[in-house]
């Protein structure tokens, strides 16, 4: 079994970091993983995306035309990538910044005001953690407690962030319920 998750949004929304945390958690769970970023000038304030491939066997092509799931943090990302998602996948829509919906009936659309929740928790910069947590809670792609641990490890040494991110994980989980 192989599944792929595309994270997409503006540069600066923590897109690459969410992907990395998920890849880390999947690796800890014993899966083969690959994390593939978009890189170059487009990283500087434009759209950013990364793809996480999770598999129970060695990963062949790291190039995926149709990912299983999508976490869209802004409108251009949703418009660009939603049509590519495989039927049956989860599409998370950051409704704080995206006024539209994915327009698909064959996927599990998860509406989460991630940026709004993050803002209420004290920083829009943790919107990516809210979204990631909501996505994992819904898709069950990895064990949720493992995700919680990996988020903590990611912010190891930055104690002030840990509490905020712990709250973000919890609020994300609730938002997916």
């Amino acid at each position, binding site marked *: 079994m192989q599944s792929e998750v595309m994270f997409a949004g503006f540069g600066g929304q923590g897109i690459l970091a969410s992907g990395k945390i998920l890849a880390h958690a999947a690796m800890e769970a014993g899966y*083969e*993983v690959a994390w*593939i970023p978009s890189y*170059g*000038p487009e990283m500087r304030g434009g759209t950013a995306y990364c793809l996480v491939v999770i598999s129970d066997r060695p990963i*062949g*092509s790291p*190039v*995926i035309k149709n990912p299983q799931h999508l976490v869209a943090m802004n409108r251009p990302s949703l418009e660009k990538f939603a049509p590519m998602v495989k039927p049956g996948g989860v599409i998370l829509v950051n409704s704080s910044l995206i006024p539209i919906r994915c327009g698909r009936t064959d996927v599990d659309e998860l509406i989460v005001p991630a940026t709004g929740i993050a803002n209420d928790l004290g920083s829009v910069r943790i919107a990516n953690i809210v979204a990631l947590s909501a996505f994992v809670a819904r898709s069950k792609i990895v064990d949720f407690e493992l995700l919680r641990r990996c988020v903590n490890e990611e912010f190891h040494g930055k104690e002030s962030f840990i509490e905020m991110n712990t709250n973000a994980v919890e609020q994300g989980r609730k938002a997916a319920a």
Partner: protein
Amino acid sequence: MAKVLMKGNEAIGEAAIRAGCLNYFAYPITPQSEVAEYLSKRMPDVGGMFLQGESEVAVGYMLFGASACGARVFTTSSSPGISLMSEAISYIAGAQCPAVFVNIIRGGPGLGGILPSQGDYFQATKGGGHGDYRLLVMAPASVQEAVEMVMLAFPLAEKYRNPVMILGDGLIGQMMEPVEFPDHLRTEPTNKDAWATNGMDTRNSKKSNLVKSLYLDPKMLNDHNLHLKSKYDQMKREEIRYEAYNADGDYKILIVSYGTMSRVCRTAIDMMKEDGLEVGMIRPKTLFPFPEKAIYDAAVKESCQKVISIEMSMGQMVEDVDRCVKGRRPVEWYGKCGGDVPTPEEVIGVIRGLL
């Protein structure tokens, strides 16, 4: 050691340290700059040395000077930077010094683009710099393999007193995968007292050493080149590395592909197998020396109708594949080089078109 999740570029930097190389010169260029960023932090921790040179031209010669006085050295760059280093690479090969170059290829020619490509196959395997020299070239297909090849590159460079190149592509550099750093690949630098300009006192000798590539006498230069050739011939005998995939059964088509492109082909082969179509693959891990016999043997298998070289370039490796097959089977080519890596579906379409 436990697996860690690392970006290819960072893993390459760490692999060099684990291999026992504590000297690194580099110049920033996308998509390999993370190596320099990583090692600028990491080298001080391990008592190593990093210097950002003023250009790739200078970096090439910093490597030369350091290697010539006996130090284990390496650098990383991407295509246009390797072009600039090619002058030094020719000198280093001519002067028979060990050094390791990593090329995280981007699209070309000229400024090209920054996305993955395999357009530097010719540059790496046929020269790039001037004169009759060869590089030992290894092409990793995963971050783990990049780590292992980097670690292997140092003893090989020292064994042959010749530059070794790791030919990756933007994806190998930018992708994160779980990696392990094998302890058994750590090696000690060889004793270089016989030739290195490390100071007569260092080696307790009264005889000075000279590192040079200048031979004005035609016979001496010819002899020198014959000696270099004997080393390249030895590489052909002892260093060929490749992987055969789905090549035991009766396949109709044989793919030859390397690096990132070979992973896509592997997935395509698995998908075709589910549909009852058998396709085999030879994946060269060393591009020089090239797995000539393995490709010939796989191509002339009775079931095999055609051979195809699939590469992220406009038909470079296919010339070597064609040479190996010796006219016994038609040799086709498929490739793309703008930066979009072909998908497995695309590869399947191409393979079906051959039948």
